[in-house]
């Protein structure tokens, strides 16, 4: 059967195979080019609310002339107003803190699932990631009733006599962190569990035979081998959390600054499209490094 593949034989005609590529260029690549272009425009009281806007029927010369009207006003605006800088910094801080908390909860949880025997293991695993399938919005909403000043958590704590006055958690950054950890926990559990589950039991036995304590075996064998899963989980939580809109909007306070929410307000309430586009492009640039690492992890995963 060691036949040399003389030519690639595929079951689909080339035009069908190229459909996803065409679709991706049109709807996943072109939009960013347009967003970049609009971020260089000026805000205007027009429909659409920016200029210069390019007319598709206009000639190249006309386009060139209009391109000279490009401005960096929107970007300058982002840096002139400290609101944006604060929003980026606080988004990164909240996302990093949430990622750390999610990791601290998910790791022992995933490790315990991986330790379960027989049919219990897949059952526990399915139960751990099942909440991902229920509506994100609903899961965030569930926490409003719990965290509010007159909410269930404060009721319970006062009833237990642990506190006298209701805790102010709702509308703070802590509420946002809780919301992010809760919503994104399955994304952290999944890669860590996969990394732990495929580890060879013989490695731990060998460590034990050589006299390592269970703790030492964990630190020197299990933990290092699970690090790719940990990294993947952290990126799957961190990258989307930085631009999160729903959680800061519903659980955060009116003064909460997260860049996803700031962009939303700029776009829908202030109708400043160039500013919103510039904020989106800048966020994309900020996320380029974690995205690149994530992409390399995916490619490495493919090869195994």
């Amino acid at each position, binding site marked *: 059967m060691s036949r040399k593949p003389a030519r690639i034989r595929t*079951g689909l005609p080339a035009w069908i195979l190229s459909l996803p590529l065409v679709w991706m260029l049109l709807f996943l690549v072109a939009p960013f080019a347009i967003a970049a272009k*609009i971020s260089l425009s000026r805000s205007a009281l027009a429909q659409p609310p920016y200029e210069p806007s390019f007319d598709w029927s206009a000639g190249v010369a006309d386009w060139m002339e209009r391109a000279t009207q490009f401005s960096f006003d929107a970007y300058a605006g982002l840096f002139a107003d400290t609101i944006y800088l604060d929003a980026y910094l606080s988004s990164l801080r909240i996302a990093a803190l949430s990622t750390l908390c999610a990791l601290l909860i998910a790791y022992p949880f995933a490790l315990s699932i991986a330790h379960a*025997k027989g049919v219990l293991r897949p059952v526990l695993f399915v139960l751990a990631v099942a909440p991902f399938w229920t509506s994100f919005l*609903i899961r965030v909403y569930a926490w409003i*009733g719990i965290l509010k000043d007159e909410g269930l958590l404060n009721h319970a704590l006062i009833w237990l006599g642990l506190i006298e006055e209701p805790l102010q958690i709702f509308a703070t950054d802590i509420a946002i962190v809780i919301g992010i950890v809760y919503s994104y926990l399955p994304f952290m559990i999944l890669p860590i569990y996969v990394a732990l589950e495929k580890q060879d039991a013989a490695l731990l036995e060998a460590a034990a035979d050589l006299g390592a304590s269970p703790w030492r075996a964990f630190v020197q064998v299990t933990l290092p081998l699970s690090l790719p899963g940990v990294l993947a989980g952290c990126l799957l939580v961190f990258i*989307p959390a930085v631009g999160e809109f729903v959680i800061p909007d519903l659980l955060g306070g009116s003064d909460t600054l997260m860049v996803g929410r700031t962009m939303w307000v700029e776009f829908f309430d202030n109708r400043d499209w160039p500013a919103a586009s510039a904020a989106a492009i800048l966020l994309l640039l900020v996320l380029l490094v974690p995205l690149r690492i994530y*992409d390399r992890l995916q490619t490495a995963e493919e090869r195994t």
Partner: protein
Amino acid sequence: MKRGLTPAHVTFLAFGFAFLYVPIALLILFSFNDSRLVTVWGGFSTRWYASLWSNAQLVASLRASLIVAVTSAAIATALGTIAAYALARFGRFSGRSVFSAILYAPLVLPEVITGLSLLLLFVAFGVERGLTTVIVAHASIGMCFVAVVVYPRLAGMDRSLEEAAMDLGATPLRTFLSVTLPLAAPAIASGFLLAMTISLDDLVIASFTSGPGSTTLPMRIYSQVRLGVTPEVNAISTLMILFVAVCLLLGVLITRRAAPDRTA
């Protein structure tokens, strides 16, 4: 991995599952609360469920959401499967890493970025916004998820089956349709379900790309939630959770029946 649970493991599991499920359980419990105050128990009642059906806006948005979810998931499944097939069968074609980077990025990219730039695209081309634009947006995101789910199945498939079919005289297309596709069917089905779930759940991208009169269910729920916590929202949420739970259970049963020989 050495198997067997110690008391420490059981504690971690109990804590983890409590964290994951207590909020959902409380949400369901308070949908049966007779009191309008969501956090004080006032007796058992199903009246909030009854009031849902008379809410015409809600029913209309449910209909819009279902249309968008099914249509976009169908497009996403077709495109995502072809993309996965191209990745799995063409080894290292030039531009492969760029292709896969574009395919993987939307899985983690904040939705505000994707939503905003898709809207700008539609505006730049003068496309009227409505259900169609939401379908296109959801299909674009969904195809990435489908490709990620289907790719490992196609890449791990025994190529000799395809070769045998072609040696027996089947055309490449026939081989694809009657050997490759059926073998990848479970992965394609779960890709479809995933794309549909993501579409049904999406608030941010739908808010950017929909037009007047094309409000989806999450958009409707969101506008109600912003007005405060109400038992009606708890009731809708409970029904949605029930729907997802039934689908998940069916999915698990079907995959167990369809693939008893699957190696773990």
